[in-house]
Structures are given as structure tokens and as C-alpha cells.
């Protein structure tokens, strides 16, 4: 999206917006020069469209119909087929730990939310926004910078006390930060090889440039349990912060510095 000359609407303004969708909350933070209302409306409508298509909890969604057996998976619309192909690629990339199936049933939720946030951010960019941050239930895609000369600062929530932070990740240009952990609604991540809930980790945060990817990587590393930090360390291009169940914090791939598009981890 960057590099395109987007005519900026004269009605563009910085805006904050909170949208309830997919059972969680999406926070839009569009900084100067802002975006016009149509751009924000399109990004929000996109989230609801994704929910209507991919929700495993809706009987009338495409995914819901595949799960119910009323729609053969080979007959899904092309856009859905591409998402499922990407899920298969991520499955291979993560040694099988990331999966678009849960308990044998189609459930691409683990990929869809991060991807939806990333695309919502692209929609804002296409509408002329140069600096914004979209946070969907704790997974974040930032573009540009928070203020002239100041990178975005993403706090990482302490898995043992949500009112505290364990770290801060900074980045400008294009920064994505995803965290997987024992969610409020209970454990929803299982090791696909053993079908057991992973042990050893309380949360895994991964930073990079594109949320769909770092979200899948964070989910996979969490599913690996105690083996997660070693696996993350092999992916040196990604910054990660892992909290073990004993409270110990393991960091990897930290690129300290403020180069555009790179993430830097600082102690909170």
C-alpha cells in the first residue's frame, strides 16, 4: 500500500474508534493526518464481513456451513479458499503447530483475526491514513509512527496481572505485535500432535511487520509449550518475548534500535 499516492480527503481527521466484533473489541487509533469517515466505515464493515464469513459459531457463515457438512470445502468461494491455502502454508511453516483445524473440524479463527486486522489497517492506508494502529483483542498492527519522530510503543501485558506490563516493543514504519496465551475465555490452544493443552508457557509475544504471520507464529510457539522459546530463537528475524509459567521471561531476536520497520524491545 505504501508508495501509492493516495489523494487525502479534506475531511480526514485523527479518530479513535472502538468496535465490538468477533466476540472481542477492536480499537482503532488513527493519528494525524487522519482518515475520513468513509475510510473508517469501510475498515469496520470489513471486520463484520470477515466475521459473517469465517465465524465457526455462525451456522450461516461459510465456515459454519462447512462444519455442518452442508457445504463441501472444495466448493467454498475463492476468497475463502485462499485463506485456507494460507492456513496450510502456515501449518507447514510451523512444523504443524499452527492449524486451521481444531479437533478435526475446520476452524481458521486463529489465522482470521490477525489477518482481518492487517487488512483493516491496509484499508485505512488505502483511504489515505499514514499513521494508525489497529488493535483487535490484544493483537496489534501499527503503520507509520505515533507522532512525528516518535515510534509506536506497544506495551506487552503481564499474563499474571493484566493491569501491568512486562515489556514494551517499539517500532515505526510497519509494526505488528501478537500475543498468544491462556485467554480470558480459557485455554483455546491445543498441541495438534497430542491434542493436549500446552504446558510450560503463560504467554508468547511475537513482533514483526505483518500481523497475520506473527499471530500464527505466536500461536504455534505457545502450542509447542516448553519447546516454544527454542523454536522462536531459530527464527532470528522475529522479536519475541515469552513468559514461562514459573514467571521467567525469555527474549529472542531483539533488534534494539529504531530503524524504520524494525521492532525494539525495552524493559518496561
Amino acid at each position, binding site marked *: 500500500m505504501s508508495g501509492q499516492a493516495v489523494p487525502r480527503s479534506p475531511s480526514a481527521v485523527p479518530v479513535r474508534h472502538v468496535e465490538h466484533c468477533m466476540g472481542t473489541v477492536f480499537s482503532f487509533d488513527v493519528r494525524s493526518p487522519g482518515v475520513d469517515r468513509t475510510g473508517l466505515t469501510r475498515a469496520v464493515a470489513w471486520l463484520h464481513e470477515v466475521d459473517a464469513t469465517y465465524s465457526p459459531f455462525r451456522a450461516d457463515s461459510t465456515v459454519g456451513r462447512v462444519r455442518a457438512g452442508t457445504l463441501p470445502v472444495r466448493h467454498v468461494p475463492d476468497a475463502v479458499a485462499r485463506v485456507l491455502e494460507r492456513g496450510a502454508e502456515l501449518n507447514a511453516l510451523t512444523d504443524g503447530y499452527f492449524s486451521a483445524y481444531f479437533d478435526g473440524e475446520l476452524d481458521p479463527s486463529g489465522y482470521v483475526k490477525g489477518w482481518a486486522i492487517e487488512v483493516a489497517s491496509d484499508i485505512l492506508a488505502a483511504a489515505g491514513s499514514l499513521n494508525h494502529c489497529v*488493535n483487535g483483542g490484544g493483537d496489534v498492527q501499527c503503520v507509520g509512527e505515533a507522532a512525528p519522530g516518535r515510534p509506536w510503543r506497544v506495551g506487552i501485558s503481564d499474563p499474571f496481572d493484566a493491569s501491568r506490563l512486562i515489556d514494551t516493543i517499539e517500532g515505526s514504519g510497519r509494526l505488528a505485535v501478537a500475543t498468544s496465551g491462556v485467554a480470558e475465555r480459557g485455554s483455546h490452544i491445543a498441541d495438534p500432535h497430542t491434542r493436549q493443552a500446552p504446558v510450560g508457557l503463560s504467554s508468547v509475544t511475537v513482533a514483526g511487520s505483518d500481523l497475520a504471520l506473527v499471530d500464527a507464529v505466536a500461536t504455534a510457539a505457545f502450542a509447542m509449550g516448553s519447546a516454544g522459546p527454542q523454536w522462536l530463537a531459530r527464527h532470528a528475524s522475529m522479536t519475541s518475548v515469552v513468559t514461562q509459567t514459573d514467571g521467567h521471561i525469555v527474549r529472542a531476536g531483539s533488534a534494539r534500535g529504531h530503524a524504520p520497520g524494525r521492532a525494539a524491545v525495552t524493559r518496561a
Partner: protein
Amino acid sequence: MKRILLTLTATVAGLISLLSFKTSQPQTTAGPLPSAGLPAGATGSATSSATSPATGSPNQHATSYLGSAVTTTYGVVRVKITVSGKRITNVAFATLTAFDPHSQQINSAAAPRLLSETLAAQSAHIDTVSGASYTSAGYVKTLQSALDAAGI
């Protein structure tokens, strides 16, 4: 403890509704919105165009804003915040009508915690928070919700 969190939930929701500049409708915490788009006045969906008064002198006038009244299980709550520049400098309850003495006690305990969490989120100088996913109802207990509320 659970009751305190529930009360806190309602008060933070009041703070959010306050900052969305909607003052007519009492709001409660909401489930997912069924429809797409930006329905004006929809419960649980708050939009505020950023006013930008902070580009002037460093000595900002402190301005107080009154939130919507929120009816909770334990009473009616209305939050008042004081804003200086773009920072919240104080959070207080303008209305705190408890249904019984026990609720009064809970509400009183929630007030300082709401204040400290809101101010802590601001003083960390962070723009957003990454963490394990939260539900639509649990959002109001997160630091992110305080940041969204403070981001005016």
C-alpha cells in the same frame, strides 16, 4: 473481588461512553454488535473525533467532562474526569447511588482503583497493549480500554 470487578467494569464503561461525547443514553457493557458499519449511538460502539487543543501553550486549561449515567447491579454510576491538554488528570464519581450499604462499600473501593489504573496507563507512555485475547465483555477491564478512553 468479583463484585468489585463488575463495578469497575461499569465505571470504566461509563468513562468510555463519556469520552464518546454521547450524553443522552445510559449505557451498559455490551455484547457483539450484530450489524456492520458505524451505527450512531449503538451500545458498546464509541467513536470520538479527536479534538486537538493540545497544540497550544503548555499550560492547558483543566476541563471536566461528565459521563453518561450507567446502571449497574449495584447502583447508578456516573463518572467525571478532568482533562488537562490531552491527559486525564483526575477520575471521580459524580454520581454513586448504591442500592444497599454493601454496594456502597464496593463502589467506594472501586473509585481509587479506577483512578490509578487510568493514570498508570497514561504514565507508561504506551500507545497500545498486546496481550492474550479478551472477550467483548472483558475489554472494559483491560489497560487498552483505559488507553482508548484517554485517547482524546
